[in-house]
């Protein structure tokens, strides 16, 4: 039996490898997860991450992982052949915060995926957070405010104290045809985001 390799902090100087567009190189991968061919409702996630004093966390690396608009993952462990997988969508995105702690992803709204008991989970996006000063990364989930019915019976949301569930919700707005979800991550304090031991 071998033991896990310990996590260490990402530190402050990761941009030239993990966010190469800041050094004139193509992103690998980046925060633009869609092409015009990608199926489904195209959305922008407008995020912000701040600490318990309301100060931006900069730099932080945010990664997201999600199903496509049909609720299918681009991965061999998703064995549901009956659901077509969108070849124009990998489901993975990576972004870095700016000086205000803001980050943006252009993606699609994911379809619902099943839980191990085969009930449908509410549509959601998995989120990881890496930052200087953090020795391990944190896991959270993003849910959608316009999915009230599905959210109400989602087993993961229901495992969270009701008062803390709003920290996992991204708020929908529409402006000139662009659909944006605002998502706030708070590391500490009154509105501390729920982090999962995933």
């Amino acid at each position, binding site marked *: 039996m071998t033991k896990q390799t310990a996590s260490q902090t990402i530190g402050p*100087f990761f941009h030239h*490898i993990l966010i190469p567009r800041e050094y004139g190189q193509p992103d690998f991968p980046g925060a633009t997860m869609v092409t015009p061919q990608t199926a489904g409702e195209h959305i922008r996630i407008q995020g912000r991450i701040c600490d318990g004093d309301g100060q931006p966390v900069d730099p932080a690396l945010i990664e997201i992982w999600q199903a496509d608009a049909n609720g299918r993952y681009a991965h061999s462990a998703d064995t549901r052949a009956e659901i077509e997988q969108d070849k124009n969508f990998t489901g993975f995105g990576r972004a870095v915060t700016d000086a205000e702690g803001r980050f943006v992803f252009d993606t699609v709204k994911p379809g619902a995926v099943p839980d*191990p*008991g085969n009930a449908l989970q509410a549509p959601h996006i998995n989120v990881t957070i890496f930052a200087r000063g953090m*020795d391990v990364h944190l896991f959270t989930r993003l849910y959608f405010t316009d999915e009230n019915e599905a959210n109400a019976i989602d087993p993961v949301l229901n495992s969270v104290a009701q008062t803390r569930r709003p920290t996992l919700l991204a708020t929908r707005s529409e402006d000139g045809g662009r659909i944006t979800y605002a998502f706030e991550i708070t590391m500490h304090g009154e509105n501390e985001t729920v982090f999962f*031991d995933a």
Partner: protein
Amino acid sequence: MTLEHNYKPRDWKVHPPVTDAERDAGNPRKPRQPMVPLSHTLSEITGPVYGHGALASGDDDLTRNAVRNGEPLGERIIVSGRVLDEDGRPLPDALIEIWQANAAGRYAHDGDGHDAPIDPNFMGTGRCVTDKDGRYRFTTIRPGSYPLPFGDNLWRPAHIHYSLFGPSFVSRLITQSYFPGDPLLEFDAMYNSIPDQGARDRLIATFDRHAGTPGFALGYVFDIVLRGRNATPLES
């Protein structure tokens, strides 16, 4: 449908704590609420996949992938090893991204204010994907130490940063490897944030005379272990 397997938990005897009650008292960046346990679903046992086709050739040679007018300065080294899971199974097709300071202890990063020379021929970044036996290999320059912007002449031990995707979103890992015999390890807050001495020791790459290239580079071996799978399949 059937979930093939879920993943073993993060081993909190090995990983630094999310929040160290003593060290992080008053730190506004650290969560205070306990983490909420999350049973793995399809969303956790899947994750991004990057095969060998995703990389440019030569991405694994940091002594060549950024040359402009000559060769990078410093001691050439080969860092190689295997990526395994907790059951000792090799993990093929795992993307590894590395970054590091140059031989003088300076990052090719606009934010690095350390007064040490920039090497115009060294970016300090590389990528590779593990082969069918989980093996990887980078050719690089031994990184230098650099001072921290606080404390009484505290310097970070020489290190290389690693970012890995294993087979799933929950097998993601970012870590660092260190070099044997570095006197700075004793004082390093990051290295010492690991609760277990054995887990600390495993972040120190092993010097191996036979893992280098004769007459060209010395060799170090650093194996990386990601989360394994539970033996019991979850049937629906």
